[in-house]
């Protein structure tokens, strides 16, 4: 009888401990499930805020560029590298965007690429917009890789950000959407 009593007490204790462990695990899962995912949180963090200003001298023609000087226009900031396959693929789209929409300011921010490679890249593939190197701007924008594209509205606010390649159409869609939403259309 003593053994039976010990067995009953022992199994009760095991059940209490198991229940406690289950409650802790469920609480842990609930906390993890309700957190923002990193990507979503990062994209939302900068959108709607004033875009970080940056300056640079274009590697193509030594002209000066400053982001705040583009106030009044939509500005596309494209982060790229010559060794990045999606960057090579999207480049013709940026050339078309620049040719078809001169009212939109376009600037390329170089990522981990020597000047000589940038010059060769643009000579082979075309493009006459400012191409600048600015390490601080890369961190200010929270760049994590290439290609990344940001769109700044005429008042200087960041309204769009994407990782991966873009097309002329996708950029114009983002700008048109913003124009409609803000009454600029």
């Amino acid at each position, binding site marked *: 009888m003593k053994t039976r009593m010990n067995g009953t007490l022992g199994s009760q204790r095991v059940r209490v401990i198991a229940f406690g462990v289950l409650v802790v695990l469920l609480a842990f899962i609930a906390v993890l499930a309700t957190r923002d995912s990193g990507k979503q*949180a990062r994209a939302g*963090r900068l959108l709607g805020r004033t875009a970080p200003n940056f300056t640079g001298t274009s590697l193509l023609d030594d002209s000066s560029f400053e982001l705040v000087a583009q106030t009044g226009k939509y500005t596309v900031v494209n982060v790229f590298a010559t060794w990045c396959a999606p960057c090579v693929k999207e480049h013709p789209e940026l050339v078309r965007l620049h040719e078809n929409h001169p009212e939109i300011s376009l600037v390329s921010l170089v*990522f*981990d690429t020597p000047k000589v490679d940038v010059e060769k890249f643009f000579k082979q593939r075309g493009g006459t917009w400012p191409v600048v190197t600015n390490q601080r701007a890369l*961190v200010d924008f*929270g760049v*994590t890789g290439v290609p990344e594209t940001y769109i700044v509205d005429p008042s200087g606010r960041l309204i769009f950000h994407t990782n991966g390649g873009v097309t002329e159409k996708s950029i114009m869609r983002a700008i048109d959407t913003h124009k409609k939403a803000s009454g600029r259309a």
Partner: protein
Amino acid sequence: MKKLSSGSTRAVVRLLALLAVLGVALIVGRDRAPTNTVEARTEAIAKDFKCPTCQGQSVADSKAATAKVIYDEIARRVRSGESDSAIRGFLVDRYGEERLLRPKATGAGAIVWIAPVIGVVVAIAGLALAFRRWRVRAVPTDDDRDLVTTLRKSRGNG
């Protein structure tokens, strides 16, 4: 309620003494390199921040281009006189709190700090319970004695 035996008490005291010695050794034996130079501060901040494009590596340890860019920016801000907390705050603002290798002690990150403490407390309590049960079980009861006597008689040894 039975008191702890002197043997169990001595064992617990020895264990606590050992833990205290280990704790002192860890504190005294820590690296005493200067921590307030530009290089040391940059390294310390970079070690606390995960490289955005690497799996699990800090900005200080990673050779990725993104990590180098962030490391250089940290160094620039340290040289310009920004405080460590301001620089960490800037990085969190740009890359997210999930990039911190040492989560903040608030919100969901508090779990990382509280869980080990709870685990140690539960483990010590479990050990104490186990010691007590082993000692209690070592004392035979009257029922045990009766049982042994009965068995001996039945085998002709009584």
